[in-house]
Each structure stands twice: as C-alpha cells, then as structure tokens.
C-alpha cells in the first residue's frame, strides 16, 4: 500500500485552485458541473412534496435558453425512491439512494442488504452505501471488504457508490487504504462523505482518492468513478475539482459516468455563474428556483 504524504498532497491539491478558468472554459465547465450533480436531500423531514421540488429541479435546472443540462441524479433515502421514480420515470435523471443504515452504517449486514435490495426493487439506479467506519478503524479490513462485496451483489444491475466518510477516517493513509478496499470489493464509484460529518469533501481527500483510482486503473484497466460530497458550495470550488480530475485522471473522467458532485446548495451558485457568463451580468438569487 503506498503511503500518502500530507504536506505534499495538500500542496498539490491547493495548486489546482490556482488555475484560472475563464470565458468559454468557464461556461463549458459549469455546464459539466451541472450534468455531474447528484442533487441531494437527506433530511429526516423529507416528504414526497420535497422530493417533487428536487426532481423537477434536477430535470430542468434552468430556463432552456441557457442550454443547461439536467442533473445526473437525485439522491434520496430508500423509502422515497418510489416517489422519485414517479417524477423521473420519463427523464434521463437517475435515482440514487443511500442504503446500508446511512449515515452511521451500524446495523447488522443482513438488514443492510435487505435495505439495498428494497431500494433497487423500488427503482434505484444507484446505491450509495456507507462503509462501517467502526469496523475499518478496528482494523478488520476483511470484514469491510466482505460487506462491500455483499452489497455489490445485492445491488444487482444498480451502480454502487461506496461512501468512505473520510472525515471519520481522518488520515490520508486510511483514506487511501479504504479506497483500495472499496475498489477491489466492487465499487463503481468511491465517495468521500455522507454530508453529515464535518469535514466532508475536501480537495486533498478527493485527490488522494483520485490517485487511488489512477493506480487501480494502471493495474487493472478498470475506470472507477469518484464522488466528492458535502461541503462544496460554490461554482469556483466545483471548477477547481474539475481541474483536479482533468489533471489527475485525464479527460476520460470528465463525464457524469465517472465523476459526480454530491450537493444541494452548489447547484444554484453554479447556475448563477452560468447565467452571468452567458448574459454578462449577475441575476438576483430570487431568479433561481429552489430545489
């Protein structure tokens, strides 16, 4: 297992934020960000009414004249998958659902798997599972692997995103190791965070995971996707993530098939910037519908 040097990893991550993304590059980048968005609501208070807002926004984030793409997916709790399915059936927007006892992941594996199967049965295209940090930090890596592999099987045709909850793993070496375990156990995507723990996604943590993805690709030829989630709130930050993906994994990863943002407040800031680049002036936030 390669080790990670904290100082140099953070320095490298900071270098991406100093790229200057202007004019046509900015416009193309912002549209790409929208198309990579997993528009997320994961509140205890989520109702079908709230999901309706979210789904409508994901399908058409902005007035058609700006030619903004639809979001990649909406991300909801399993018991709301059926509702989301109703709204999104005719659209290209995927339904992602957090299963496996989100966000703590502390529940018997059997029950977690049942939850996953239920969500897939209800129409989830993608399952965002959490690893058990308790088991990982206790050093029982085999069990972490086995649980991911079992979830992979329970997913059937659905894509599997594995949430490492990097804020609880804390060290980059842990993040690197957890990424390796997840990829080898069958993850389609690895994902930083639940959004319930601070810090959530950061540039250096995402970089360490992208580097793990790169090594896995070198070794196997398999392209694993990446999803930073939580904590990315501005268009500027999102563009810096795109720069990081482009310069770490190359152009092949600049697609919603391999890179996603897990976010909710980010979308309207991106749209606001998009309109600004297109019209050359800022609009009031009141012109952007809330998800």
């Amino acid at each position, binding site marked *: 297992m390669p*080790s990670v040097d904290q100082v140099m990893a953070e320095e490298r991550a900071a270098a991406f934020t100093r790229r200057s993304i202007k004019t*046509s590059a900015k416009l193309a980048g912002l549209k790409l960000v929208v198309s990579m968005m997993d528009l997320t609501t994961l509140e205890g208070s989520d109702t079908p009414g709230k999901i309706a807002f979210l789904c409508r926004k994901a399908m058409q984030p902005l007035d058609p004249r700006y030619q903004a793409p639809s979001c990649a997916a909406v991300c909801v709790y399993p018991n709301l998958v059926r509702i989301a399915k109703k709204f999104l059936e005719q659209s290209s927007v995927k339904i992602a659902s957090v299963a496996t006892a989100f966000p703590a992941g502390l529940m018997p594996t059997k029950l977690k798997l049942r939850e996953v199967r239920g969500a897939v049965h209800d129409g989830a295209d993608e399952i965002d599972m959490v690893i058990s940090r308790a088991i990982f930090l206790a050093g029982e890596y085999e069990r972490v692997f086995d649980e991911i592999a079992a979830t992979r099987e329970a997913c059937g045709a659905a894509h599997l995103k594995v949430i490492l909850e990097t804020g609880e793993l804390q060290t980059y070496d842990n993040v690197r*190791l957890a990424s390796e375990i997840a990829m080898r156990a069958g993850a389609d995507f690895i994902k930083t965070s639940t959004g319930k723990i601070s810090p959530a996604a950061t540039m250096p943590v995402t970089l360490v995971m992208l580097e793990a993805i790169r090594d896995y*690709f070198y070794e196997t030829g398999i392209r694993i996707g990446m999803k930073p989630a939580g904590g990315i709130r501005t268009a500027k930050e999102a563009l810096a993530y795109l720069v990081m993906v482009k*310069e770490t994994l190359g152009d092949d990863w600049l*697609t919603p098939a391999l890179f996603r943002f897990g976010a909710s407040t980010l979308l309207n800031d991106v749209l606001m910037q998009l309109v600004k680049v297109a019209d050359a002036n800022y609009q009031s936030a009141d012109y952007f519908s809330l998800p």
Partner: protein
Amino acid sequence: MSRRKPNSSQLAIVDRNGEANGRPIAKRRLDFGERWSYAPAPEANRYIKLRNRYQLFIDGRFVPPKSGDYFDSINPATEEKLAEIGSANEKDVALAVKAARRSYKNVWSKMPGRERGKYLFRIARLIQEKARELAVLETMDGGKTIKESRDIDLPLVAAHFFYYAGWADKLKYAFPGRKARPLGVAGQIIPWNFPLLMAAWKLAPALACGNTCILKPAETTSITAFHLAEIFQEAGLPDGVVNIVTGPGETGSALVNHPDIDKIAFTGSTEVGKRIASVIVGTKKKLTLELGGKAANIIFEDAPIDQAVEGIIAGIYFNQGHVCCAGSRLFVQESVFPTVIRKLRDRISTLRLGDPLDKNTDIGAINSRSQLDKICELVDSGLKQGAQLVQSRAPLPAKGYWYPPSFFTGVTASHRIAQEEIFGPVLSVMTFRTPEEAIARANNTPYGLSAGVWTDKGSKIFKIVNQLRAGVIWANTYNKFDPSSPFGGYKESGFGREGGRHGLLPYLTLS
C-alpha cells in the same frame, strides 16, 4: 489487506465501464487531451511602463554609461526587444565604487542599525505594494511563468528584505560576545534565473550589516533591477548605498578587479566562479560563491510515490529547470522504477507550456538563445550516448525560445547528462538498489549544492541526510525556500551561506 480474484460482478464492471466510455479496456493509458480546455487567461500587462532606455544607477541617480553603448533586452517568449540597457565599462564601475565608498564612509556605516532597518522595512513594503507590476516585468524580461514570479519570486523578495530588516539592529545578539562590523563596499554579481530574488538575497543582508553595494545584474535580465532602484529612490535610501551597473561579462570583470572593493559575492556558473576565485586570490577581498549543482533527488521504495512525483516535478521543471539547486539527477530504487516512470510520463503531459503571462502556464520560455543551444547540445549528447528520451508532446510556440519538459531513462553515471549541469527542463533518471548505493551515487559529483530524499520512514531520512554532501537537503519536499534558512554549497557548488543568521556572516567581520 486481502487481494482476491475478481468475482463475476467485478467482471461486469469491466464491461460496463468499457461500454460507458466506448474505449477498449486494454488501453490503460490516461488521456490528457483537450476535451475541456482552459481558455487563455493572460495577466494584464498594458499598464506596465517600460522605458526605452535604462541608464546605470549610480549615486542615487540614473546616469548614461560613459561608453555610450547600449545593448538590447529581449523578451525570450516573443523575441521582441523590450528596451535598451546601458553597458557599463571600467569608468562607470569606478564611479559606482567611488559613490559606494563615499556613502559607506559618510552615511551608511555610521547609521545606527535601527535606522538602517527602517529603510529595509520600507523597501520591503514598497516591494509588496508593487509586487504584481514587478512580477509581470520579471516574466516579460526573463520568460518565467507569471504563476511563479507572482507566487514565489516576489513574495520571497519582500520576505528577504523584511527578514534582514529585522537583523539590522540586532547584530550584536546574532553573534554573542563578539563585535560585528561591516566589511565596506560589496560587489555583487547575480544570475538571470531569479533576477529580483537574487538581488534581494545579495542586497538585503549586505545592507542590514552596514555595507554599501554595487549590483551587477545578468545581461539578459537587467530591467527589474532598475525598477528596484526606483523603489530605493522612493524609500529615500541615501545616495550611493546601492549602485547598479549593467553590461556583459566584462562589466562584472571590472567590478571583480576594482581595487577598492572589500567583498565579492557571486551567484552563477562554476566556470565563472572559478575564474573569479583565481583573480581574487592574494587580494584583501572576501569572497562567497554560489555556483552550479547537479542535485540528487532520491526516491526510496517506501516513499509516498504520488507526492514524490510532485517533488520530481517541483525539483526539475520549476522555473524551466533554470535553478542551481534543481533536482536534476533522479535516483529511483529499482523496485519502484516502473511505477515512478509511468507516473512521471503522465504527469509531464499535464504541464502547460506557452505564454509565460498566461496564469495557467506551468513551463515558460528558456531564458536565452544561448541557454537553449546549451540544453539542446547536452540532450544530443545524451541521445548519442544511448540514453532514452521522454518528452512532453506540448506544442512549442513558433517564436521565442522553448524546450519541452523532458527526462532521460537508461542514464548511467558515465553519461555527460548525469555529470554536467543542463540548467533546463531535462531530468536524468538513474536507479539504485540499496541505501548505501544511493548515498554513494548521490555524492559521486563535483557539485554539492542540494539534494532530496523521499521515504515515509523518519529514521531513514536522518540516516541518509547525514551522509549526503550537499548544502541544502529537502526531505519529502523539494525547492522550498525561506529567508530564515541558510542556502549554499559544498565542493564546486561554492562556499558561504545566504539566508538566515548564517547569511549575515559573509558581510561582517567579527572581533
């Protein structure tokens, strides 16, 4: 962790990924193309006021050279003429020395350290205020990227003045129990790779210690020194405390040979350094030399590889490799050699080469035609001697002097490219098997300026660095500079230290 055979569902991912991207899986190559390309992001330079002619700066005023001769300063990225620079001959140098001697005797050496410090603080603040303008000028004149002149050169220039301003009134505490006195008049000859930064490295400690200076910038990068002179005027620095004479090698030679100079400080090539040393022998002049290097950057198998690759990049491609402490000899432990090479190959294809004023440019222009010729000649020798060249495929602009980021594999210690300083973006990669071999190979050079060590094991770092014969050694990082840290070489990389408390010593006599 466990490694298992892929189960059937993993194989399914292979298929899915293959379909999703429409590319054959067997092609395990990253594609650093232009599917999402960065639009040009040029730093504005229309407000920059270049003078048509830059005169010599002697005794606080800009004066035409006695010879009446001027030479052109070229923007190496466009080959356009920026300005004409006055060419100083022996008479001009004599005037500069006279002014420096007078201000040393009458003003600067008599001034309390606290007052000298005030001037240096004021200069530092003015540099910060004009940092962006100076960075743009530095980039236009020398070809280095705006990213580096803005984020590295100028902040360090100001930091050096701030740092030594702080020492000016504390010299008696720097060397307890001893009396520290200035030397007198210092002649300071600086190179073209970091024009303002090298000026700061030389001037700040000399002035803090109470010496007066004659600065001789490099021929291809004189312009920013004159803008620094304007800052000295604005700061009210007494006339003659700093004088600037520009010109070719002969100007420097006149300075070195002038009898009324107490100290020569030179940064540049080992060849010229040796000549200066032989001229000065037997005179009263004190000497410090900061010369060439061929630094070993050593990567052990237990290193954090992805970060080490960043260290390789920072080591050799920083400032187009025009860095005396560049990590130009890379030693990779054989077990991780294929991994490191593969990553390095991918990494250099992400380096953006082009307009140095574009904020996204990583690799700027080569400083001069003659330096480009020297790089090409050494690369040819590497090819002739059978080493394998890997180069970035970045297209080179039609005008200007450019060299793509490159590295050689299959290099041995007997290759010229492993022995001679290339001073360009060209790395020589070699392998080793054991720590002992790494140390022996790293020390197998007439130079000894710097080195780098990459390992996750702390005890190994200390074991290795104590046996490397180099003045500056970085562990798990490379090319990091700070005014409080002394810098200088072993062996043919020179003697004397610049930076830190040590950097005061070459400008003082202790009694």
